[in-house]
């Protein structure tokens, strides 16, 4: 009875989140280039392990980056995650800033249609841009802010082929990036202005993945095809000018990743991933006027469960996760200087509902950029909470 109650609760939480879905933004001064900062992961378990996941799979949660991981799903899964992010900005010389935000990050649904075949549908953030500059003096204020991001609606399919797990996902990109320049004058004789440059992005891409699990080892790889998204740029000004001022393309370059995992027993799991994307090959004209830089990400992490026995005490079934992540962001800041991000990650996996469902909790602590090269540094804290519930759809109950 109690487990059903919790199931219903988790379902309601997810439904409410779905209704209120709005890509969670987060402030970062580094999000002012191109399409903003990219989000590669939406799986809280993976985040707790430093971002690994290419080689891993899970019967409860699924990993967006490698659709092959879906094959382990044997019950219909509804997963969603919430995120809070805070960036303390150090500008040097005692100047600083603080940007923070939180909200729904992603929602997903995975449905096993046959044994070893799973389809998945979900929406997740691809990028975000959120910052605000402000000048205040006796004549008034001037601000430049950005709000918005690109979201991704994905439709994935995965199946078991012998020892291999393979999967493919169609990614439908959509979103809007607003850059707002405001002038507010103290004098009532001078009219205030607000110019909103909004870029609406749409497009499609595909990504694929494969996994194999020989003994205690796990190997996985995934790649995403390059694509050109359609960008419609519209200008809206306070006096009432509204018009499309340009149409262009936004190129998302090819990416690939590889992962390695090792599970010496059912309680320990260790993994490492590498991912790279050639943003440096994208011309500024196809990156909203900004210059890209080749990005890469190196992550490692582990997970420990005291007991995998379903009848053992609750706290023995909690998963403890740790990891680290080092990445180079896809933009130069300033031109010629790469931006590095380093985080240490921790997480917990809290099972409920007979162990079929889980709440994942992850914290990332780290920094982006440095004052010497990038003239600005961010100390970042990200908190993620993921809820995964289960249902039995399209599966006949076994006869007794």
């Amino acid at each position, binding site marked *: 009875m109690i487990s059903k109650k919790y199931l219903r609760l988790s379902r309601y939480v997810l439904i409410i989140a779905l209704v209120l879905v709005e890509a969670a933004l987060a402030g970062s001064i580094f999000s002012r280039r191109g399409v903003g900062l990219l989000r590669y992961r939406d799986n809280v378990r993976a985040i707790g392990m430093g971002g690994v996941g290419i080689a891993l799979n899970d019967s409860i949660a699924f990993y967006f980056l490698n659709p092959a991981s879906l094959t382990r799903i044997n019950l219909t899964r509804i997963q969603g995650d919430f995120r809070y992010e805070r960036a303390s900005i150090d*500008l040097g010389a005692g100047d600083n800033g603080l940007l923070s935000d939180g909200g729904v990050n992603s929602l997903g649904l995975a449905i096993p249609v046959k044994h070893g075949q799973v389809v998945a549908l979900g929406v997740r953030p691809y990028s975000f841009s959120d910052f605000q500059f402000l000048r205040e003096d006796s004549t008034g204020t001037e601000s430049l802010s950005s709000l918005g991001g690109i979201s991704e609606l994905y439709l994935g399919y995965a199946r078991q082929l012998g020892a291999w797990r393979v999967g493919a996902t169609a990614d439908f990109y959509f979103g809007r990036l607003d850059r707002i320049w405001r002038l507010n004058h103290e004098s009532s004789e001078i009219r205030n202005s607000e110019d909103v440059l909004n870029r609406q992005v749409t497009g499609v891409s595909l990504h694929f993945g494969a996994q194999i699990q020989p003994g205690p080892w796990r190997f996985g790889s995934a790649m995403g095809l390059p694509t050109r998204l359609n960008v419609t740029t519209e200008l809206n000004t306070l006096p009432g000018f509204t018009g499309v001022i340009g149409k262009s393309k936004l190129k998302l370059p090819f990416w690939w990743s590889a992962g390695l995992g090792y599970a010496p027993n059912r309680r320990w799991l260790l993994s490492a991933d590498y991912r790279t994307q050639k943003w440096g090959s994208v011309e500024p004209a196809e990156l909203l006027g900004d210059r890209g830089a080749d990005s890469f990400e190196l992550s490692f992490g582990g997970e420990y469960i005291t007991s995998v026995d379903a009848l053992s005490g609750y706290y023995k079934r909690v998963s403890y996760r740790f990891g680290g992540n080092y990445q180079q962001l896809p933009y130069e800041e300033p031109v010629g200087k790469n931006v590095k991000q380093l985080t240490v990650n921790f997480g917990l996996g809290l099972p*409920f509902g007979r162990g079929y469902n889980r709440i994942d909790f992850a914290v990332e602590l780290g920094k982006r950029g440095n004052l010497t090269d990038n003239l600005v540094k961010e100390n970042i804290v990200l908190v993620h909470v993921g809820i995964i519930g289960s249902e039995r759809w399209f599966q006949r109950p076994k006869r007794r």
Partner: protein
Amino acid sequence: MKLKRKIAGPLPLFGVGCLCLLFTLACNNDKTIPLSSGLADPAQLGQRRQATTVVGLDSTASKVVNTFGTANLWVGKFDNLESRFLLRFAKLSLPDTVTVVAATLKLHGILAQGKGADFDATIHQVTATTAWDSAKVTWGSGNFPVDFNSAPMNTQRVSAVKGDSIIFKLDPVVVSSWRTVDGRQQGVLVQAPGATFMKAFGSHFSTPKQPVVELITLKRGNTKNDTTRFSPTVSIFLFQRLSALRQGPLYTGLGEQHVSTLFFDVSAIPKNVTISRALLTLEVDTLNSVFYSNRLDLQLSYIGPIAIPNYNFNPLRFEPFGSYQDTLRTAELDTVGAASQQVTFAITSAVQQWVADSKNNLGVVLFPISFSARDLARAAFYSRETAPARAPKLQIEYTLPPQ
């Protein structure tokens, strides 16, 4: 039951608690990044620009209009204008048994314009057989529009001291005739053809400085005179221009009504800008202006779309006294006086519309609205023709959106 509790655990509630914590954390105040940090990409910022446009087309249309309603009755000559005034009185309610022994008309001096020696003003009986219409009568040029007896009833010396009053003696016979009921009482005219300046006396609107007639009467059988005082029911001054007004400056005036039209070409400014401020400045041409002690209130209106099919608008052809008057839009106000060097109108909203669509740009019309100085005050401004360097200018501050 014990087993179930162990399996389910209390953790979902813990998760919900974490969510609440996240939302609470998200509700703190961010601290924005100073724009002065230099980290903002200049290309993402818009630009503030300024532009100055000299008037493209300007013109003045003039017309003598009816001056009824003013506080001043002008007589004399000034600024190549000659002015006279008319007074009309109510039917005199004196019985036949009362005789008018003597009558005087007192006029209170208010203003003087121009310089010159004292002059003689004469008062005449109006002999017109048709009543003059105070709301329509004008002079303008040529013969005086109302017939009068050229033989004056009386002559008085008018001084340039603005507060000096004069008292005309009226012919008792003429005044006695005002009690007839045949409707031919047309009042009196005051003129001064030999004047060297112009003097204003209070009109019937200028309480307590309105004209006053004082009658000395004697009732049949009595030996003691009675005194009766009354004021005119209608008074108005009429003027004619003795020589043409100097062409070139842009004029505004109400008695001799001048309306100026100005057109600025703002097509060089992109359509998508925000006009922060647009100031139209006109420099006052004091040599060609006529100001009283009161300042002249000016109104600037935008000419709205003209609903005439295929009408090719040209501000120089705009007829400010015609039916297009009702196309005028939102007014901007300012005042101008003898000490003014320039007048400025904020026309930000209009320029925003002009920039957005050049079809909206039909120019502006400048005219005075001061009823207290409605008569012969006139403001002149430098035009493209008279002084290109001092011609009306439109200074526009605007913001160019980020590209």
